[in-house]
């Protein structure tokens, strides 16, 4: 298999990755960007039926102009010695050698199990949005949006615009906490306007705070759900449930490259924030992290961090002061937001029953794991997290339910044909 070589490898083509590639390539560096999706833009800029627009299109156009190599449908599956990764694209593997690597793998939704959540028709909130963008026609479907986080409003607004009959939004956070966040948004003008706009867009949709979906039922697919909160319980008939509990970073690639991921924060040398991780500095001076995987904070923070990582990887002094001030402002907002949508463990545990499936790959039930001491033991004893998704879904659920740390990724980080591995050789061309 032919090895590719680049100066700066960017893993992930969302806002952070694109901004990083743009910054580095504008300073004359040879840059390669890979993304697992067939289209660049990441989740936030996911294209409607493959048509990029706005800032995403602007950045991709700039990259094309700068001769950046863009490889869609390409995943980093393993780390190789001598500053190389093993990439998988269209069923074939090949090494990519780099001088510097920028990890910008973004975030995914965090899912919290509840009875019935494995029924077809129960989606992630962002997940349903992505499927609609991919062409899923939801016109006339009765939809409930539930969980926690700012994504719920955005998703509800989008689904309504696309013809979905959005019956209600059930937000687990209390009205009190949301009010506090409202105050925080006032300090960040852009965020405030965005929140107001979304609130208007969703007008006419019931917005219920302090409420959770406690079960979903149906024969072969979703038919009805129970929503509980504020001392009340109601049954709602619906076709689709879009549920998400805020976001969690895609730290798998960072873990492969031995960058520490701790409590959602990736500790790595990133040109500016080195002080947070001096001990790791010497080991990781060629590895940069940017965007949601380095802390959930939204698209503006991702663009900023991406740009900074791109400049640092290219060896260019950035406009550091301006960047630092802007970052502090966005960082304040991000931490206010993350506090508001912090999950209440007792509420989550109350909803669980012993037969609630936690690991959907191996169908491991809550009752089997609740007495385990940690995630590794639970994995070995019950096979939770040992299926194809390698704990991407149940890992963050267990983190929320039990406080377990879950850093135990093994290569390949997505399943890979044995015959492809049999072809592997590290001999260079």
């Amino acid at each position, binding site marked *: 298999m032919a090895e590719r070589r680049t100066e700066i490898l960017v893993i992930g083509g969302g806002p952070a990755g694109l901004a990083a590639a743009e910054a580095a390539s504008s300073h004359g560096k040879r840059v390669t960007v890979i993304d*697992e*999706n*067939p289209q660049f833009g990441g*989740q936030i800029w996911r*294209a409607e*039926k*493959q*048509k990029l627009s706005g800032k995403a299109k602007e950045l991709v156009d700039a990259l094309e102009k700068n001769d950046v190599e863009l490889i869609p*449908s390409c995943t980093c599956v393993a780390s190789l010695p001598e500053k190389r990764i093993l990439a998988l694209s269209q*069923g074939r593997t090949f090494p990519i050698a780099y001088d510097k690597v920028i990890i910008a793998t973004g975030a*995914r*939704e965090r*899912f919290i199990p509840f009875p019935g959540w*494995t029924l*077809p*028709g*129960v*989606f*992630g909130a*962002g*997940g*349903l*949005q*992505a*499927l*609609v963008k*991919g*062409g*899923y*026609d939801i016109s006339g479907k009765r939809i409930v949006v539930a969980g926690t986080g700012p994504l719920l409003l955005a998703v509800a607004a989008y689904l309504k615009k696309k013809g979905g009959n959005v019956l209600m939004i059930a937000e687990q956070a209390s009205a009190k906490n949301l009010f506090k966040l409202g105050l925080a948004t006032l300090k960040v003008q852009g965020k405030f306007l965005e929140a107001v706009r979304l609130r208007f867009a969703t007008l006419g949709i019931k917005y219920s705070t302090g409420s959770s979906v406690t079960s979903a039922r149906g024969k*072969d*697919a979703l038919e009805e759900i129970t929503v509980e909160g504020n001392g009340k319980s109601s049954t709602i008939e619906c076709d689709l449930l879009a549920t998400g509990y805020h976001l969690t970073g*895609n730290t798998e690639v960072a873990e492969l490259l031995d960058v520490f991921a701790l409590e959602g924060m990736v500790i790595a040398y990133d040109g500016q924030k080195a002080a947070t991780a001096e001990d790791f500095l010497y080991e990781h001076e060629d590895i940069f992290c940017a965007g949601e995987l380095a802390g959930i904070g939204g698209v503006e923070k991702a663009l900023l961090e991406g740009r900074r990582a791109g400049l640092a990887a290219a060896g260019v002094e950035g406009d550091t002061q301006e960047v630092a001030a802007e970052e502090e402002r966005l960082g304040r907002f991000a931490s206010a937001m993350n506090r508001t949508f912090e999950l209440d463990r007792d509420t989550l545990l109350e909803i669980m029953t012993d037969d609630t499936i936690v690991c*959907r*790959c*191996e*169908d491991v039930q809550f009752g089997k794991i609740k007495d385990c001491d940690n995630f590794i033991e639970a994995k070995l004893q019950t096979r939770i997290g040992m*299926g*194809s*998704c390698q704990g*991407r*879904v149940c890992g963050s659920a267990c983190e929320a339910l039990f406080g377990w740390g879950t850093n135990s990724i093994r290569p390949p980080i997505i*399943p890979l044909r044995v015959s492809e591995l049999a072809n592997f050789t590290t001999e260079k061309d």
Partner: protein
Amino acid sequence: MPDSLKFKIDGVEHATSPGTTVASALLNAGVTAFRTSVTGEPRAPLCGMGSCFECRVTIDGVANVRSCLEMVREGMEIETGG
């Protein structure tokens, strides 16, 4: 956009427009069981973005492909329920 792409789901012919993902096309076709879980439950997409592996189907003979990350192509043959 017209439904100009022809493809098959479990041997039955369907059509969709370009830019549609396989997962979305299956949902539009009313498929609920994309795959069968290890205890025999029907499963369908959860995350829509490649993390959960619930939307796995067989595409053109290749098993366990995440349908949310694939675009429908002319003549594609999709098998579900595996």
